[in-house]
């Protein structure tokens, strides 16, 4: 058959209904402060890894809360756990434990 080169793009939409609620459940259990984020972006602005990569810890948090876990394993590897984000967070979110917890949840659930 002739290949015309047409493809179907994968759906980029967050389908909250289909996404597993398990990762969020475990994240909220392991680090309850994830719920008080106000998405100000202070963490990302000061992030050492952000200066050299496209790592965005604010966005990683939001994606995790929506159950969008597919890209996160690769993403969180960029974090060097320096903890600067935590010192600027106006709500006192424990960001280092956020990263460590996401790591554990993804490993455990093989995501």
């Amino acid at each position, binding site marked *: 058959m002739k290949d015309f080169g047409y493809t179907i793009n994968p759906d*980029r*939409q*967050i*389908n*909250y*209904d289909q996404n597993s609620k398990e990762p969020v459940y475990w994240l*909220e259990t392991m680090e*309850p402060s994830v*719920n*008080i*984020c106000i*998405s100000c972006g202070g963490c990302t602005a000061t992030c050492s890894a952000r200066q050299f990569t496209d790592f965005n810890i*604010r*966005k990683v948090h*939001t*994606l995790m*809360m*929506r159950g*969008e876990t597919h890209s996160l394993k690769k993403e969180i590897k960029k974090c060097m756990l320096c903890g600067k984000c935590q010192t600027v967070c106006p*709500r006192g979110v424990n960001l280092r434990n956020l990263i460590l917890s996401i790591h554990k949840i993804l490993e455990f659930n093989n995501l």
Partner: protein
Amino acid sequence: MKQSVIIIGGGIAGMEAAASLARMGIEVTIVEKENALGGHLLQWDRLFPDRKRSDEVLEYLKKEMDSSISVETGCSVKEISRENGNFRIILDNEKILNGNALLLATGYDLFNARKKEEYGYGIYENVITSAELEGFLRKNPQPGLMKGFQVKRIGIIHCVGSRDEKVGNLYCSKLCCITAVKQAIEIREILPDVEVFCFYMDLRMFDRHFEEMYYEAQKKWGVHFIRGRLSEADENPDHTLILKVEDTLTGLPLKMTVDALILMVGMTPSAGTKKLADMAGALSGEDGFLMPSDEHLQPNETTVPGLFLTGAVKGPVSVGNTLADARAAALKIYEYFSRMAG
């Protein structure tokens, strides 16, 4: 001779101003189009941020009202005229009232959510307004919100009829954000297994304790906030609703099914205000709310001597701030009379 004031509007602004004026020895008549005093507060359950019962506020206001205050309920103003600095008002029951000053306290109307057709209010079964939720909570602290199925997830939509040129309202109604937070907490209290998502553009927690209430909603009640304006809601055959928004903080479109949708309807100038303002000579702003002569220095005065404004007739305002404004208006009327006499 005793000075007299006619107050048009028997909501909380009119009631509080009347009580203050009566205590200053001024004769007061309130004209209210509904059959009872209290205005919108009659349909509210509890007030933010301390969750005081609105009935408590109403009882306080009623108790404060002196027996000397005369009240004309169930009637509207047909005509306003001004002669020698005094106001003459003809009601629709042909009754004539005379006053040395006139106070407009005609408040606001809630935005008609049917105008945002894409949200499905009045079309889909499980789309209700914030005011209707208050009604449910008022009648029944265990509301049977939805019929026939288990509720798992509720969406709350901010800015319905506010900050929206499509409906002609550029302004922010400013109180819906905190109402959303309050109602989200109340839903979680009553239905702890229900997920609550607030869809917002900005969260405007402008007054004391509001930000703390937002913090509490996140920390204690696990209410979720998604930054993005609802583009449309579609109804499934089982009457659940599919929401489509951009999750602007991830930059991705998001789709979510909810069992019910609560629309945070904004405040608009009340229906009769324009006509009354024209008859009395008060000016309206571009948003339709009435303009005092100076928003900083003369917030209760108008360009017409003896004509005063108070409460939400000048724009969205909370209960507490309305009462403070009503007291200020009463004082300004008193000073106006003192000046006239002196």
